[in-house]
């Protein structure tokens, strides 16, 4: 069952072409990694999916989303262009955790997570038991419940990131977009977060799309990987098919050793060093 359908999306910023004819679909119940180097267009793609940018060509469609999240007028449509949805409707299906966001005002952690309920709960039933329960569960799953009353402007980068993910979970989305979620996180929190993603996917049966440049985490945790270079998809498929020594050398310019690891039941990547150095010698 398809959920997200990206169809021939091209996007340019002025005269600079950033995305060139991207097509792929992703389904519920999987973690999809979008892998690529800085400037490969990963974040732009994410912004086209969440309708922040309008692609010049192509479309992003949501298919078979749950009917109670949709506006009444869209109840009977099988697929919907993200650009045709209201913000309200979109936010009930799609949640995005951006790479860099910050809060200028000293809200408490719990108040920020509650903001995720904006399109789900009315102004008056915001503090009912059911609502509080959802907000607390979201905070608990990312481990921010301990400091629920702290001022968000006092948090470290990693703590703030976990608060933003809790906020996205409070939206109860069907598709969760994460832009470099492990950036600024300690090693242990990186693994906690990726374990959390796997847990959410299996429990709630949603789609998680992760944009990252972290080869190891993508190889280990993503069901499917889309590799991007210069605004184009160069390779797409299961981690086992995509994460190869040849791809890493071609896209990232790194020599690597890749093997299937029984213990982690996934691909393990060991980076050796720059591969271009030998090829590019002047």
């Amino acid at each position, binding site marked *: 069952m398809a959920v997200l359908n990206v169809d021939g999306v091209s996007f340019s910023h002025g005269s600079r072409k950033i995305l060139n004819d991207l097509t792929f679909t992703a389904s519920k119940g999987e973690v999809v990694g979008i892998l690529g180097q800085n400037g490969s267009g990963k974040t732009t793609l994410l912004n086209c999916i969440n309708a922040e940018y309008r692609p010049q060509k192509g479309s992003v469609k949501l298919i078979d989303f749950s009917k109670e999240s949709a506006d009444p007028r869209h109840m009977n449509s099988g697929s919907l262009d993200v650009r045709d949805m209201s913000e*309200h409707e979109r936010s009930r299906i799609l949640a995005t955790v951006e790479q860099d966001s910050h809060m200028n005002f000293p809200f408490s952690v719990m108040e920020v997570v509650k903001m995720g309920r904006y399109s789900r709960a009315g*102004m008056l039933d915001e503090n009912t038991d059911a609502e509080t329960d959802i907000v607390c569960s979201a905070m608990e799953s990312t481990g921010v*419940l301990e400091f629920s009353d702290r001022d968000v402007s006092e948090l470290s980068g990693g703590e703030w990131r976990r608060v933003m993910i809790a906020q996205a979970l409070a939206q109860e989305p069907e598709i969760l977009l994460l832009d470099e979620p492990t950036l600024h996180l300690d090693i242990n929190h990186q693994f906690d977060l990726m374990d959390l993603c796997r847990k959410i996917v299996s429990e709630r049966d949603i789609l998680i799309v992760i944009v990252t440049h972290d080869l190891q985490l993508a190889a280990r945790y993503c069901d499917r990987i889309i590799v991007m270079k210069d605004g184009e998809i160069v390779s797409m498929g299961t981690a086992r098919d995509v994460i190869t020594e040849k791809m890493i050398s071609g896209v990232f310019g790194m020599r690597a050793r890749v093997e299937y690891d029984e213990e982690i039941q996934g691909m393990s990547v060991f980076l050796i060093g720059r591969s271009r150095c030998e090829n590019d010698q002047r």
Partner: protein
Amino acid sequence: MQSTELREKAVSLDRKRRRRAYVTVLVLAAALAAGYVLCISLGSARIPVAEVWAAFFGRADWATEMIVVDMRAPRVLCAACVGAALSVGGLAMQAIFRNPMASPSVLGISSGASFGAAFYIAYGASVFFSSWGTLACAFGTAMASMLLVYALAYQRAGGVQTTMLLLAGMALSALFSGFTSMIEFFSDADTVTSIVFWMLGSFDGRGWSDFYLMILPLIAGCVLIAVNARALNLMTAGEPKARALGVNVKRVRLMVLVGSSVLVATCVSFCGVIGFVGLIIPHIFRSIVGPDHKKLVPICILGGAVFLMLVDTFARSALPPYELPVGTVTSVIGAPFFLWILRSRKNEIWRS
């Protein structure tokens, strides 16, 4: 279980924050009621509180009743309304611009309104005289300058730029002050006096008719902001984030900008430029109850009303027989007070 304990703690801490807001609302409401009677009793002619009470029910002598019911009651009420409106207007703009410095005076809206009012006093009044004329002119120019500042400071990526916002506001402020000076230069002495006096900001001579005229636009402006209180919280996270969380950013921005322009333009056109209220009142209460706009909107309405009512009473009774223009007092008291707050509580109020 440890997890249920944590949950209970989190919920009770959150409830404590809300309780603090309720207490603040109650205290301010009581202060408003008590302050209203007190402010009527104080002034160049001191009237005991009991007699103020009697005058309201028509049991005092003729002179007292006239001072209380016809002069001071509407005047204090106007001061309270303007205080409330300026505070809420400032609060809303700080949220929309994501900047604690945003206020009508910093953004050039007051100078815009002054220009409109001066233009009307100098040229319009002879053509078409009506108390709505000043209001209409001041409102129109206030609105235009606000849109101009916003348009100048807006960039496609990153939304409104703080520095651009302040610079554009200052530049427009200077531009409109320049126009106002030009109008003054070409006017006769009487017109200049009334323009200058108007711009100092005063509630002198405000009566019931003024109150009836200003109350509707003020309520409309407050409602436009209050219904978006929750969305304003999300707007402080930035427009893309607010959109992603389900806020119709365009609509909220328009409603709030129109709402605060209406508030500010109405206040300025009725009682001149009264600076700093929109800046300090939201700051003070943000440091007490936190930045949640659902709490801050009612609290700023009450707090701003109490503040300006008291300042106006101080202004008209501090140096008898003179009545100081309230605008000068808010600046003279407000600016140092604001600086003191910034210095002493800077860690709790604002970080960026």
